[in-house]
């Protein structure tokens, strides 16, 4: 009955998260697009950072959620936690892809390249690949417990690996490409800080809302599947 109570809780509180996220994001968009002045150095280009940075932060938040949920699943073996893991992985993939694409758009005018092997970009690319692998692994497994456990294992290993990857790429880059990329990215002026904070918190809360919705979605889909299975069992379908 844990699952039912949990889903009921999600259903009860999700709208507050959704509302807060809407308010914060529309305020962030308004200040970011309309009232704040362009950056001294980067001009209008800096505005993409108001989306890019929150996306990247939320991707990391989502992966951390996936990691914690995976540990929780391995500990308690609660099926609804596995649904939350699956939901967090899908959202994490979405935000990672969004962060990579907006980062690439920002990188073209700033670094004059769509892609550089920067430690942060590399770790994100590997995070992306790991998450794709995670979701693929899930599609290839049939047994529910096995699927949940194996994917949790993959998520944990991937999470442990990310700092190591970041660190080793940093070392590697300092050896091979010194100073080709100006790290002078964002100099945060006070009137830039407002949209920045609003968007960061807003997208973070939006993620919690999306996680709640998606967990419910996956849970309900599994319920329906179980129902269909039962009909199949009784020869009605």
């Amino acid at each position: 009955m844990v699952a039912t109570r949990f889903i009921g809780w999600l259903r009860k509180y999700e709208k507050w998260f959704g509302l807060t996220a809407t308010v914060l994001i529309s305020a962030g968009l308004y200040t970011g697009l309309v009232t704040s002045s362009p950056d001294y150095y980067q001009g209008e280009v800096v505005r993409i950072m108001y989306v890019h940075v929150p996306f990247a932060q939320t991707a990391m938040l989502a992966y951390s959620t996936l990691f914690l949920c995976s540990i929780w699943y391995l500990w308690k073996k609660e099926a609804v936690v596995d649904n939350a893991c699956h939901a967090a992985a899908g959202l994490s993939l979405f935000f990672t892809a969004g962060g990579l694409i907006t980062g690439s758009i920002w990188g073209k005018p700033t670094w004059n390249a769509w892609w550089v092997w920067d430690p942060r970009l590399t770790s994100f690319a590997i995070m992306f690949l790991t998450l794709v692998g995670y979701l693929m692994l899930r599609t290839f497994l049939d047994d529910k417990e096995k699927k949940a456990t194996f994917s949790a294992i993959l998520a944990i290993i991937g999470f442990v690996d990310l700092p190591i990857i970041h660190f080793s790429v940093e070392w590697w880059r300092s050896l091979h490409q010194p100073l080709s990329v100006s790290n002078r990215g964002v100099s945060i002026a006070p009137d830039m800080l407002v949209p920045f904070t609003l968007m960061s918190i807003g997208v973070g809360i939006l993620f919690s809302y999306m996680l709640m919705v998606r967990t419910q979605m996956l849970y309900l889909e599994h319920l329906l599947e179980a129902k269909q299975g039962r009909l199949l069992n009784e020869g009605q379908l």
Partner: protein
Amino acid sequence: MNAILGTSLSKSFQHYQVLKEVSISVQAGECYALFGPNGAGKTTLLRIFATLHRPSSGSFEIMGMDGKRDRVKVRDVIYLIGHGSYLYDDLSVKENIQFAIGIRGWNPTEAEIKKALDQVGIGRFARLRSRYLSAGMKKRLSIAKALLIRPKVLFLDEGYASLDERGVGMMNECIRSFTQAGSAVLMTTHDRGPTADVAHRVGVLNRSVLTEISVKDMVTADALF
């Protein structure tokens, strides 16, 4: 004493719910035979007791130990003879037995292995690589392992499959020796004749309903499934 006790066990794979609220109990020193149509979930039930699957809901006990929490202790007392032979193709019969028993923390002597192999009638092949064994011989090898391990609870999945007549007799002898020593045996089977010789109780699992019938009825019934 209940050697095996399952309470309202359910199990579903993806879309398909195989077991729904099945309860069963087997006493120590008893042989329980499970009949049922293909796909009724007999093997799944057996595998849940053998701690290979976790039940979707419900609980079970083996020798009074909770099957969900004390899995390691449960595993100490069970042995499953399933569809797989658990053999390594490139090891000889004797080496396979040494490995399978040795990994449990006990090294049987040459004489004990020889005795067990002779008992199941494959003593001649002790040095043959298990790649060349036939299905029946592999089954006999599994029985030899069970005889060496002497588990408190033995699970037999399709116990008589791929055994010849002498093999079936030998299997029954083995089961009888287990039950006489106070072990419980839970088997799934489709062969009524040999089952009638050893089974103390018989259950028919059909659409997640377990009906118990007497051994006599089992032999005389027109169609069990």
